[in-house]
């Protein structure tokens, strides 16, 4: 590739990162101004938070909390994927399954997952399973609905094409239904990861484990800078795991690359 070609590719990239950095710098400036002006009680400023964050990163308590949270997230998310993707494919593919299963899903879906917390704590055998169930609920529905949507969006002529090439129903599933719905499944996986984190933190606050617990303990002990520092950590981990899912998916879906 020519030098000009490389430059053409790098310049828009750089400016995109530069804009991103400017955006974050702006946020930190506003935050610092608000903290300095004492507008909101005793809100810790960027410098205090950074110090707290530095201390947290070497604190064994937070290491343990992160380990718990990651275990909850990964476990619940995997269970959600393993259940929601096949179920979504079948519901999308076979209208009889859709008509039998989907209505009950539609009743459960609008319930805010946090509303399940009291019941799960009472009913499920341990705090850990309660947290994981709530987290699972966050990931399950976006993955399920996007999978169904992906199957429904496939042009039916592709199925006809496979049939007229001598393919069976199984061939249609393997060559059309599954690969054709992957871009939409991928969207569901990214959204599902984000909502899994939302639910995880809420559940952990109540059920007293992991990063959610750490935020809550910081609150009850009045460690303002630790609250903000751990919120930043949760944000970074949530963002990182969503990006990981997005990146992994994109490497598998080169044909759907729309730039």
């Amino acid at each position, binding site marked *: 590739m020519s030098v000009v070609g490389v430059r053409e590719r790098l310049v828009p990239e750089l400016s995109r990162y530069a804009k991103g950095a400017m955006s974050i710098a702006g946020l930190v400036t506003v935050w610092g101004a608000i903290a300095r002006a004492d507008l909101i009680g005793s809100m810790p400023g960027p410098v205090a938070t950074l110090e707290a964050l530095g201390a947290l990163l070497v604190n064994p308590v937070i290491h343990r909390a992160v380990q718990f949270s990651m275990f909850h997230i990964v476990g619940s998310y995997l269970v959600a994927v393993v259940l929601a993707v096949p179920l979504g494919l079948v519901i999308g593919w076979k209208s009889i399954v859709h008509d039998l299963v989907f209505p009950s899903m539609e009743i459960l879906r609008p319930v805010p997952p946090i509303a399940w917390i009291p019941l799960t704590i009472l009913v499920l055998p341990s705090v850990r399973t309660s947290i994981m169930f709530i987290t699972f609920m966050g990931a399950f529905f976006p993955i399920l609905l996007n999978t169904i949507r992906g199957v429904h969006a496939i042009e039916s002529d592709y199925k*006809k094409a496979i049939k*007229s090439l001598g*393919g069976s129903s199984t061939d249609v599933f393997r060559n059309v239904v599954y690969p054709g719905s992957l871009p939409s499944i991928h969207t569901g996986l990214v959204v599902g990861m984000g909502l899994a984190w939302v639910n995880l933190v809420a559940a952990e606050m109540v059920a007293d484990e992991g990063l959610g617990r750490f935020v809550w303990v910081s609150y009850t002990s009045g460690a303002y800078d630790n609250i903000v520092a751990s919120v930043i950590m949760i944000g970074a981990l949530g963002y990182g795991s969503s990006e990981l899912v997005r990146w992994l998916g994109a490497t598998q879906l080169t044909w759907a690359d729309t730039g």
Partner: protein
Amino acid sequence: MSDSKQEPATEAQGSTDGSIHLDSVEKVYDPDGEHVVAVEDITMHIEPGEFVTVLGPSGCGKSTLLDCIAGFIEPTGGNIYVDGEIINGPSADRGVVFQENRLLPWKTIEENVNIGPKMRGDVETGRASQLLDRMGLDGTETQYPSELSGGMQQRAEIARLLANDPAIMLMDEPFSALDALTKEMLQEMLLEVWAEDNRTVLFITHDVEEALFLADRVLVMTAGPGRIKEIVDVDIERPRELSVMTTDHFTDLKDHVLHLIHEEAREAME
């Protein structure tokens, strides 16, 4: 292609010569109890290796007829026989080329061409490249369909069909979305492929010149409900080149067919 096709049909069963027999085929759609007759009373025999085009205004049911023969939908009346047997759903013997290409976007061109043989479990190495070569698409093996132009996509779809070696090719306005030059090139290419392999072709179009240039016989349909208006014999020698379109004989045939269609249009308006 396969030897069996060059031999006369001595076996009544299991032969794939590619004759199509339509016996009073009728398709009525029934949305909300309101009868919509798409095609009616279509009776025609198509010989193995014959090239028949179906010509008619849009909405005359010509695609419905093709869907019936492909086995995608069932006629509500009459029967469709292929090589003497009533068809039962789609089959690899009756390949379909769609109006918009239906190459699988998630598979490379080579994977698309190989898909028929792959589903049967007998992929022959190098066969896809050979067919792509034949269609003037060498070097596109590892590309995705979206990376090809419209004309190349249609050629790749024809290669996919040839890989499956069907006795019958059903083509539903395959070139109607292409520009005039590409369209003419593909028409000539299709005639070459057809002359080499001698498959039966049923080709739907609304383009009078295309219908006459390609066909042995043109089935002109009436406007809704679709019936046979007339079957026009195209007695023009083969191999044909695009220049036949300027001959007097071609022009006469074209005038005749246009007359039939205008008559139809007038009746439909009254």
